[in-house]
């Protein structure tokens, strides 16, 4: 791997250009490098598979016929050297050809087009709710340090990160759906309900666009249970980090100075504390997106939520290589993009970052 430009101080010293642009340019290059690395990882992962994909895809009967097997290997390029296979893989990627899934017999790209919006809808819902609740709880706990509120937030957030999502999903499913009947069961929409015409793939947005109130209510109701499961975890994570980020800032000298000058508490919190704490909080929000995707694999399995997680799980257990590579790419690239976006936001919030 070539040396990464991940050292702004070294590469950028004394050169012209706007510092913000230069900083963003470097972060962008690093992100590109990481994307390239992701293609390498997904490729290596599937190339190293000792289990024979040929038998898994063709079935035992066809795999016994050497003619069929040779044909299959030629089609996938499995008879060429690894380096050539990788270049072929990259070439197909550039043309957005992610191969054909062995289990659905559809192009992987089409499968992903169906799966991604389902997960995205769930993840966005959870992210918005848990950023509000988590950062709010963390701020409250830090401002009331060593008071009862702090203790309650601490215990609740530890419970949140200690509870296995797949178990909580099952328990809430049992209580909320089977016992109380307050929530709809699995899936994204009631089976008897016609899905709204597809625009974004997000059922809540599409039903609103179509002006279909019944479908919208039903889609939101289906989001609630899996949403609560993931939110509990994400809130726990965010509350902990926000609390310690705010505590850090509270003991900083500029905050002491602001308070000593007699600024009202509210002004100090909103003008100085929150702004400074925003940088670490933003970073954690970006990073927590990865945990959210991990959690959604396990949650989707329980709620039969036909998203990326379930697709990944099904293709991984059936050795559907093309599909696994596709999911790995989408997930890796999403994660890198989000963290690049966080870098950009950070640079705007914190001027020091650009000058480093």
């Amino acid at each position, binding site marked *: *791997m070539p040396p990464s430009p991940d050292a702004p101080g070294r590469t950028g010293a004394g050169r012209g250009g706007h510092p913000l642009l230069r900083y963003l340019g470097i972060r962008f290059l690093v992100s590109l490098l990481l994307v390239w690395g992701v293609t390498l990882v997904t490729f290596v992962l599937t190339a190293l598979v000792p289990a024979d994909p040929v038998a898994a895809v063709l079935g035992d009967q066809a795999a016994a016929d050497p003619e069929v097997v040779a044909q299959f290997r030629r089609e996938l390029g499995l008879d060429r050297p690894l380096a050539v296979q990788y270049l072929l893989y990259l070439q197909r990627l550039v043309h957005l050809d992610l191969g054909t899934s062995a289990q659905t017999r559809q192009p992987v790209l089409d499968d992903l087009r169906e799966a991604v919006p389902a997960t995205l809808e769930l993840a966005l819902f959870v992210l918005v709710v848990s950023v509000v609740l988590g950062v709010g709880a963390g701020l409250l706990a*830090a401002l*009331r*340090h*060593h008071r009862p509120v702090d203790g309650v937030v601490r215990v609740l957030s530890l419970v949140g*990160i200690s509870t*296995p999502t797949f178990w909580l999903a099952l328990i809430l499913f049992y209580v909320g759906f089977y016992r109380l009947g307050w929530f709809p069961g699995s899936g994204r929409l009631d089976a008897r309900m016609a899905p709204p015409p597809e625009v974004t793939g997000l059922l809540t947005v599409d039903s609103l666009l179509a002006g279909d109130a019944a479908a919208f209510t039903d889609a939101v109701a289906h989001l609630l249970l899996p949403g609560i499961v993931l939110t509990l975890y994400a809130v726990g994570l965010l509350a902990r980090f926000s609390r310690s980020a705010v505590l850090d800032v509270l003991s900083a000298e500029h905050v002491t100075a602001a308070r000593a000058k007699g600024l009202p508490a509210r002004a100090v919190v909103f003008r100085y504390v929150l702004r400074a704490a925003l940088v670490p909080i933003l970073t954690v929000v970006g990073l927590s997106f990865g945990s959210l995707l991990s959690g959604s694999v396990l949650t989707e399995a329980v709620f039969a939520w036909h998203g990326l997680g379930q697709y*990944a799980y099904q293709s991984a257990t059936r050795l559907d290589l093309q599909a696994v590579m596709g999911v790995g790419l989408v997930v890796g690239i999403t994660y890198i993009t989000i963290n690049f976006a966080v870098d950009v936001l950070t640079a705007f919030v914190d001027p020091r970052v650009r000058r480093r």
Partner: protein
Amino acid sequence: MSATTPARPAPAAPPARPGWLRRSLRPRSPLTAIGVVVALAWLLVVVLGPMLPVQDPLAQTPDRLAPLSREHWFGTDSLGRDVFARVVAGARVSIPLSLLLVVLSMLLGSFVGAVAGLLGGVVDEVLMRVADLVLAFPTIILAMGVAAALGPSLTHAVVAMLVVTWPQYARVTRSLVLGARDREFVIAGRLMGIGWFTSLRRDVVPNVTGPVLVLATLDFGNAVLLLSGLSFLGLGTVPPTPEWGLMVSDGVQNFTAWWVAAFPGLAIVSIVLAFNFIGDALRDALDPRTQQAVGSRAL
């Protein structure tokens, strides 16, 4: 530790003030006490396991999905096995396996991190970029991919989990080593002509063990969650092993019999929570900021 420490530092001295371990383990808060008690109770179950008067966790009975009763405290599962016996037996699977995972990942990760920090340059760049790459994938998804690629077996699951867990240790160790590398006694040792490996082993390692061990304690809960999560997906332990995650997945098929999944899940929550309570106290004890903040009453 003073700057005049000779080439050979006090062995295994963590860079915190003396007595940090005792201070942090002294239960100042009820949470830490609860954590320690629960963790010790589970430890006892692991040690005494075979001697406990419970039923055979593998014995199948025609009494399938039976609710809680005097014979079966936690009911029975889909094959008529006693859930209480399986939860107890599961402690002897989940806890040692997670411990093994944490230890292996700590050894691998801190070795990589130490080498990167000590050698620097291209080696450092390459190793840390690889770590970044692994971190660019959500843990379960990458572990799932590796476990599936290698084929379902416990060994492969452990390998898969190692692949996703080493980078955090590598990062922490690297930054600690970078801090230790420029200390006088380490430089003195290198100037005396000892090789990098000897320098690593004798001068650097003792100075990074404390924080890395704390990280491992904090990480134990995550290891339990990762292992049970993979098993839940059918990519970790293999049936009929009484593993908690695997037992919860039996409850998915039979969700109306709530006891099948509820009790193994509670076992997971209790041990993870206990370790997180302990870890929280450890973190507080090691973090001087939390002690300062006690004095400065918040707004």
